[in-house]
């Protein structure tokens, strides 16, 4: 049975994504109550198996990816290089956040197998609002870009 313990893990999600974004791309995060669907929204997911298993989900706009890629590459978000690297930067954000989060949640001797990050376009706004309606999406503001993160665990 799939369960969402997002509220329980919300603090860890905020801590993890903050730590990763600050170190990786010099981007600062803060929790937000904003819910307006961002433009060019993407859904990134990674699943994991181990003492806990489930999926880490990240809803993020393409523009956040461009900001990250720009910062990582030493250029601006508007640079075509940053635009081209946007999805890759978001996948890497999820990859690093997943590893960091699992180490925070599991015992030191836990062993996990993690998937490669997957990315899909969210073309239906209802998918975003349904996710918010479930009440278990942690909403974050990354320097004006809205993102939502959720940890779903099985069992």
């Amino acid at each position: 049975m799939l369960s969402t313990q997002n509220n329980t893990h919300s603090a860890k999600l905020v801590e993890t994504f903050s730590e990763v974004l600050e170190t990786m791309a010099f981007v600062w995060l803060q929790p937000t109550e904003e819910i307006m669907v961002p433009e060019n929204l993407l859904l990134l997911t990674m699943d994991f198996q181990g003492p806990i298993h489930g999926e880490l989900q990240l809803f993020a706009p393409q523009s956040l990816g461009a900001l990250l890629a720009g910062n990582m590459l030493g250029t601006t978000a508007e640079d075509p290089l940053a635009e081209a690297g946007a999805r890759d930067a978001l996948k890497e954000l999820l990859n690093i956040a997943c590893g960091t989060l699992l180490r925070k949640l599991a015992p030191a001797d836990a062993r996990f197998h993690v998937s490669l990050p997957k990315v899909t376009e969210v073309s239906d706004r209802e998918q975003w609002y349904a996710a918010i309606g479930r009440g278990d999406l942690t909403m974050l503001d990354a320097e004006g870009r809205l993102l939502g993160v959720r940890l779903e665990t099985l069992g």
Partner: protein
Amino acid sequence: MAFNILIVDDSGTTRAIIKRAVMLSGMPIDKITEAGDGSAALTQLATRSADLVFADLNMPVMDGLQMIGRMSTDPKTSSIPVVVISADPNADQAALLNDLGVRGYLRKPFTPEAIRTILNEVLGGVSA
């Protein structure tokens, strides 16, 4: 006197960050090449050696562990030092990699200073 570095990671942006950090490290660098997975890296190493390989673990086609295993059994590549840079959640991974002869382990997210430190540790006393 300058080193050839191979960066193996399926993330192009991460390869770019590592490349920048290597170039800014102060080490004498001749060439930096890149590969998106373990198989592409081994193909490169078959024709052009490297003085150090930075390797991610979780990659498509061939992952980092498989690549490191293949390198260790090939006389052409077994002596090339490998530094793993990974988001892998397994806390004991560093110890396991040490048993495979990996010379360093950096956890993502990493700082450019960490790259500089590990380069100095692994290549600092070596003449290319």
